[in-house]
């Protein structure tokens, strides 16, 4: 079977209870796929964000799809805080593994290398470290009196992201969004939505090959034009700021959030 599927077919690789890793807004967030997962009723996810998230984590948390989140931040930057994430944390309805951005990079990078752990400077004296019994401080064995933190590798079941292009073999061109390489390398498999299919072989030309994730990491690719909306997609389109402001206002209440889902998630968008 080829790797190019329809959206729901591609997302069948993401099962309830999966450890799912997703990128930050600047790298290409699969929002159309996220809405499809919520329509399907996915639940029990262990969501890891590399290293932060906004609307994607918000919608999944608000819809009750997330059991545990490991993140460095969930928020909308200057537009405001993430109301459903905040409410879930305050209600104790979400297992939260607070991290700091480079710790998530380091732990995924360890997985890329097949190593059991990564190491990271900083952290010592932070309550982030104090709240993470899975992180350890050791003495640098190559120096005297030099404490350093070790972090267990994060090996996600699935990476989910949105990219500009894929070819029919399932090779995915990501441009300079190198975080997507980290996600694909660290995870057992990747599910990708793309703006468009590329006729030809992305690996045949060195210019495109250097920015292409080879198909052997990729489980399935589904075309989803404007699939990051209302978030931005690199040079292709910007974020829909007004939509995000409207979301933040609506989702201040559980009832408003339900109305948002009824308007923007449960009806399928016209292709």
């Amino acid at each position, binding site marked *: 079977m080829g790797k190019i599927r329809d959206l729901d077919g591609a997302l069948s690789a993401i099962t309830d209870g999966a450890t799912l890793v997703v990128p*930050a*807004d*600047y*790298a290409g967030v699969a929002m159309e796929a996220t809405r499809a997962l919520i329509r399907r009723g996915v639940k029990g996810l262990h969501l890891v964000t590399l*290293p*932060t998230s906004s609307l994607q984590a918000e919608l999944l948390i608000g819809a009750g799809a997330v059991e545990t989140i490991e*993140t*460095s*931040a*969930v*928020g909308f*930057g*200057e*537009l405001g*805080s*993430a109301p459903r*994430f*905040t409410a879930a*944390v*305050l209600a*104790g309805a979400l297992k939260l593994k*607070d*991290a*700091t*951005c*480079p*710790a998530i*990079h380091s732990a995924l*990078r360890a997985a890329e290398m097949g190593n059991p752990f990564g190491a*990271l*400077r*900083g*952290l*010592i*004296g*932070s*309550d*982030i*470290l104090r*709240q993470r019994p899975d992180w350890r401080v050791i003495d640098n064995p190559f120096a005297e*009196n*030099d*404490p*350093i933190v070790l972090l267990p590798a994060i090996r996600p079941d699935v990476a989910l992201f949105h990219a500009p292009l894929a070819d029919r073999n399932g090779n995915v061109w990501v441009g*300079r969004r*190198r*975080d*997507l*390489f*980290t996600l694909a390398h660290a995870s057992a498999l990747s599910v990708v939505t793309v703006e468009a299919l590329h006729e030809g072989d992305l690996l045949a030309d060195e210019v495109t090959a250097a920015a292409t994730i080879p198909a052997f990491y990729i489980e399935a690719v589904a075309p989803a034009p404007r699939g990051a909306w*209302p978030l*931005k997609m690199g*040079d292709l*389109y*910007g*974020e*829909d*700021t*007004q*939509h995000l402001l409207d979301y933040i206002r609506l989702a201040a209440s559980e009832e408003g959030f339900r109305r948002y889902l009824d308007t923007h998630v449960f009806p399928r968008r016209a292709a």
Partner: protein
Amino acid sequence: MSFPAAPPEMSGIKLEEVLIDVVLRLITGARHVAVGANSPIPAAAAFLAQLLSPDGPNVSLQQSPEHNLWTDGGRELFDSAGQGRIDVFFFSGAQIDGGGNINLNAIGDYAHPKARFPGAYGSAYLYFMVPRIVLFRLEHSRRTLVEKVDFISAPGTSPPNVFRRGGPIALVTPLCHFGFDKERARFRLESIHPGHSLEEVLDNTGFAFDRPERVPETPAPSPETLRLLRQTVAPQLARIYPKFAESVFGIPVASAVA
């Protein structure tokens, strides 16, 4: 957010423009200034620094590919900082305490918080690794500037055996500019913005700080700085921080979707 009206001698100059000018002076001479999420005032200062000097800094905005130099993903900022290649970074905090500790996570008991914020971002690492960290907080109150933070996202100082090449050098607020003395682990009042008083700073600050006998007034931005800021930097900012650009420079928020 709302600020007191500009005092008469600075009429026409917005508070944010004064703060941008303060940050501009703090980043003088830097080779590479990196700016994280939600930092419009630092971003404006960094763009200005680039425009004002032929040897101006490289500027990298973490979340804006058109305004950064990275080609190796989000990790490149942290890798570069780990090697000492980044000179300046910026943080805020829901709470900032007198020891320079910042709290970006939660208020109250962490297990059962009274308030929750997005999270620590890169602070628990970059606060150690970047030589000049400029703190800014746009609410100067006893609620935000506290004696001791409820949760230390990143500590202001470290024991001598912990590897650390950087940390806070200053805290900029709508009332004043504090410097930070890492040996004493205390802030020192450097200047008070026009239209504000020492009493106001003392009344609204929850931590003890050092101060000279006579505290200078923060200087106003030069006409050249203001002109560049309003004409050249503001439209750049609007694409990255639409809400800020609307409130300070009157550039309307437009939906980015055509």
